[in-house]
């Protein structure tokens, strides 16, 4: 039991905006009150927020581990020593599992979603997540290039699509369906490079990417998943791709949809030419369509590792960087590409990407609709979050940084207009916790009302927001004090968050023959058994 007293509480989900009030904890949950003998934390001069929620990061599973193996030179610069009872690890852009969990906790984050994993590798993802301490976690299963689903979509079998999708999410113990460059990855694997846009035909299937997005999103809605389809649109990174993004969003209007790392999908200009910013157009669309949500995918200067199911994109990046490249095709489901990358502030494109991310944050008026992410480690490590928060909260700092980067790029943005906007602590609490928790449909996360999970971060108020958000004084996870006075005091496992949507078991008669013909493992050995779950929580569907 625990009582946090005298802290200024930011709990936007419960309309609490900087009030001094007590937060009480019992049995891992927030409660209305605790007996006087409960341990008390004096949070005078401190800010109390729900634990951070990262709805889009790449932290576990086959592609992450390939990336880890790929970059010993990066780990070597940033060891993570064993402290006390905890495990050691390697840091850098793609930390080892233990280091990932500890470092998220060190920033006050307590829930993180792995944003793209093949269902075929689900056991791998879950084993890694089990070795990722402190945080609660889940993962999105890649479905946008699933051959069986594309066949069923082509055949117009809506019920079969829904049931197949539900079977697959159950089998993988995933959190939602992820769509990555629908159709494009399948085209890459068949040697045809990529789809050209959202309306081009996916070879061998005779359907378009938009049909895939439409059908899968409909199925997810019908299943009532707590989080809608999580969509990485076609043409990521290409100049002129904002029209693809807008058209993808339009096909979904009226239904829930989440467009991820939208910064990478906001570019004007001609294909193959220099990109320009279309952040304003995208924000305008979001303003008029509250049912559509997004996370930013901010680029931060310095080392990154691009890792994506969007394998043709990865090949393009390899051609640009000339460096290491990994491609890993996954049978019938998806692909994978990895390219280590450095974002340079002097580079026009990189600076523009950085600028567009900031534009999105600063032009957007509804923080509930747009979550903070760097698409870790694609736009940069999650360790950049405190610096990103400072860019949002501190106009002088931001203007000073804007001066340091490629000015031709800045001229293509509104950033040189000395935007007045400074995020408040309430808004930061929304984009880093309350908002993503709501978008994920996690009713017990991202707020401090009675019944919520006791995931709490306490920061010392400081003028330098980067310093403030880099070193929380206390981090409480499921009611346990993990960090106290900036130091680790306890370890914690964290639990797997997953869904179990209902489906008609007859669908196995459709799925099993496909496995017999085209998979290299047995249908009966595909689904992840309950023995992999350890601590877990089935997040209920909405219907």
């Amino acid at each position: 039991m625990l009582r946090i007293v005298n802290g200024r509480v930011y709990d936007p989900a419960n309309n609490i905006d900087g009030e001094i009030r007590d937060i009480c904890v019992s049995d891992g949950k927030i409660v209305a009150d605790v007996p006087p003998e409960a341990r008390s934390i004096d949070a005078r001069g401190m800010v109390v927020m729900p634990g951070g929620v990262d709805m889009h990061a790449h932290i576990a599973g086959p592609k992450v581990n390939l990336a880890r193996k790929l970059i010993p030179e990066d780990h070597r610069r940033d060891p993570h020593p064993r402290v006390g009872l905890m495990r050691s690890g390697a840091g850098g852009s793609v930390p080892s599992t233990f280091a990932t969990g500890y470092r998220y906790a060190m920033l006050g984050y307590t829930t993180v979603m792995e944003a793209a994993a093949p269902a075929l590798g689900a056991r791998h993802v879950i084993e890694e997540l089990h070795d990722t301490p402190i945080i609660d976690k889940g993962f999105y299963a890649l479905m946008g290039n699933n051959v069986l689903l594309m066949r069923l979509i082509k055949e117009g079998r809506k019920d079969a699509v829904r049931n197949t999708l539900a079977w697959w999410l159950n089998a993988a113990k995933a959190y939602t369906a992820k769509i990555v460059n629908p159709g494009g990855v399948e085209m890459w694997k068949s040697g045809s490079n990529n789809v050209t846009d959202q309306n081009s035909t996916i070879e061998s299937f005779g359907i378009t990417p938009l049909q895939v997005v439409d059908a899968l999103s409909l199925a997810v809605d019908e299943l009532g998943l707590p989080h809608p389809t999580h969509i990485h649109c076609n043409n990521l990174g290409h100049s002129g791709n904002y029209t693809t993004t807008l058209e993808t969003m339009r096909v979904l209007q009226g239904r829930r949809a989440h467009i991820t790392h939208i910064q990478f999908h906001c570019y004007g200009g001609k294909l193959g030419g220099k990109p320009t910013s279309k952040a304003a157009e995208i924000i305008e669309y979001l303003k008029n369509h509250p049912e559509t949500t997004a996370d930013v995918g901010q680029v931060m200067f310095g080392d990154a590792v691009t890792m994506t199911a969007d394998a043709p994109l990865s090949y393009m990046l390899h051609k640009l960087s000339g460096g290491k490249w990994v491609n890993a095709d996954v049978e019938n489901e998806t692909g994978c590409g990895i390219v280590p990358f450095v974002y340079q502030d002097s580079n026009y494109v990189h600076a523009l990407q950085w600028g567009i991310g900031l534009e999105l944050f600063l032009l957007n008026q509804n923080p509930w609709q747009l979550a903070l992410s760097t698409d870790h480690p694609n736009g940069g490590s999650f360790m950049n979050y405190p610096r990103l928060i400072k860019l949002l909260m501190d106009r002088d700092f931001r203007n000073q940084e804007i001066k340091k980067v490629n000015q031709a790029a800045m001229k293509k943005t509104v950033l040189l207009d000395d935007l007045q906007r400074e995020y408040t602590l309430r808004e930061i609490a929304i984009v880093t916790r309350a908002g993503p928790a709501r978008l994920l449909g996690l009713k017990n996360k991202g707020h401090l009302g009675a019944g919520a999970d006791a995931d709490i971060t306490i920061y010392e108020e400081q003028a330098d927001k980067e310093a403030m958000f880099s070193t929380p004084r206390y981090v409480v996870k499921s009611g346990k004090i993990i960090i106290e006075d900036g130091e680790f005091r306890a370890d914690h496992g964290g639990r797997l968050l997953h869904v179990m949507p209902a489906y008609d078991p007859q669908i196995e008669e459709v799925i099993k023959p496909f496995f017999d013909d085209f998979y290299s493992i047995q249908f009966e050995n595909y689904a992840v058994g309950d023995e992999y779950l350890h601590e877990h929580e089935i997040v209920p569907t909405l219907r």
Partner: protein
Amino acid sequence: MENTDKRIIENATCTFCGCVCDDMILTVEGNHITQAKNACVLGKAWFSEHTVEQRPFALIDGREAGTDEAVEAAAQVLANARFPVVYGLSDTTCEAQRQAVAIADYIGASIDTTTSVCHGPSGMAFQGAGESTATLGEVRNRADLVIYWGGNPAESHPRHFTRYSVTPKGMYVPNGRKDRTVVLVDVRQTPSAKVADIFLQVKPRADFEMLWALRALVKGKPVDPSIEEITGVSLHAMKDLVQRMKSCRFGVLFFGMGLTMTRGRHYNSGALLALATDLNEFTHFVAKPVRGHGNVTGADNVVSWQTGYPFAVNFSRGFPRFNPGEFTTVDLLARAEADAALIIASDPASNFPKAAIEHLKRIPTIVLDPKTTVTTSVAKISFTTATYGINTGGTVYRMDDVPISLRPAFPSPYPSDETVLRAIKDRVRQLLGQTA
């Protein structure tokens, strides 16, 4: 009590080699697998020979002991060691591997797996430039050009041809074998050559030059005619191969230890990986090392996710460091640096270089193995453990990183590797004062 009923276990997995075939139909009678349907010759031997043998649970200095006593003795050795090494791990479950890495972390050991003496060089090549690869189902569904280089799957991975890469019918190769061209490159005419449409016999120790020449030809760069003398392969044959590689729809290069164990090592693997990468300029091309032991790929994965590095990891300074040649087991032993060893499910005393074996005999060694081996016979402390996949469940990773759950056939009286390692881990943490 021994269960003498006859039982059938379907969809069981064979963990003998890296193919990790999961379509076994096992007939189990008591402590015997009397039939292993779908298994290859190696798999049949694997299943039929792994019965429960009457062996002591443990031996300490040759004296019979219980598991608990041996755990205590092992923990004492490891907690007192200054530069111990944890090695092996390719024939056990990921669950056991996770415990082994934890032990290495807590005691400040080096951890290394049999990868370092099989495809470790390929891992180093991967770190240099990456690779283009695919799961075996993609090969089955798409590959119309299959090249094996420096390996003899007919004997080492008998079902590789029939299950994944040569004969099966696939989505885009509906006629199976007829839709594929198969090439073998090797220094001798192995039994695998029978399967190939084209066999290219390269001179020993000239693989690098041949791969380099193929890369140059793919890129349209000049190749000196001396290549024919160096490799024993005509330029005409190389150009023909290059033409096939560039014009196929989906090509795959499988490679074996004929590259990694010969002069050139990681640069041989690297040249092959680079060749596959280069070919993506023209078509879709992937490469894949044909991994040996049942869960060596799991070992790579577990060590990577827990430490950031795939093998040759040292924890003596309280965090992982990676350096093949420095923290690889052969080197730690051959240079007489390691002062204790924990060996799980492998037999270095049989297959390491002589100098390494001699040092292994000098230091206190702890061994976990279901069978007696040369290594168990030189151990200070040896544990008899259950056989993974036959007696214990758990996770293994196929050579293409696909994780598969095991369906054990019958229980063993002996503990699993995971159980023993967990007990050692808990005890060394106590001894080192690392418990709360």
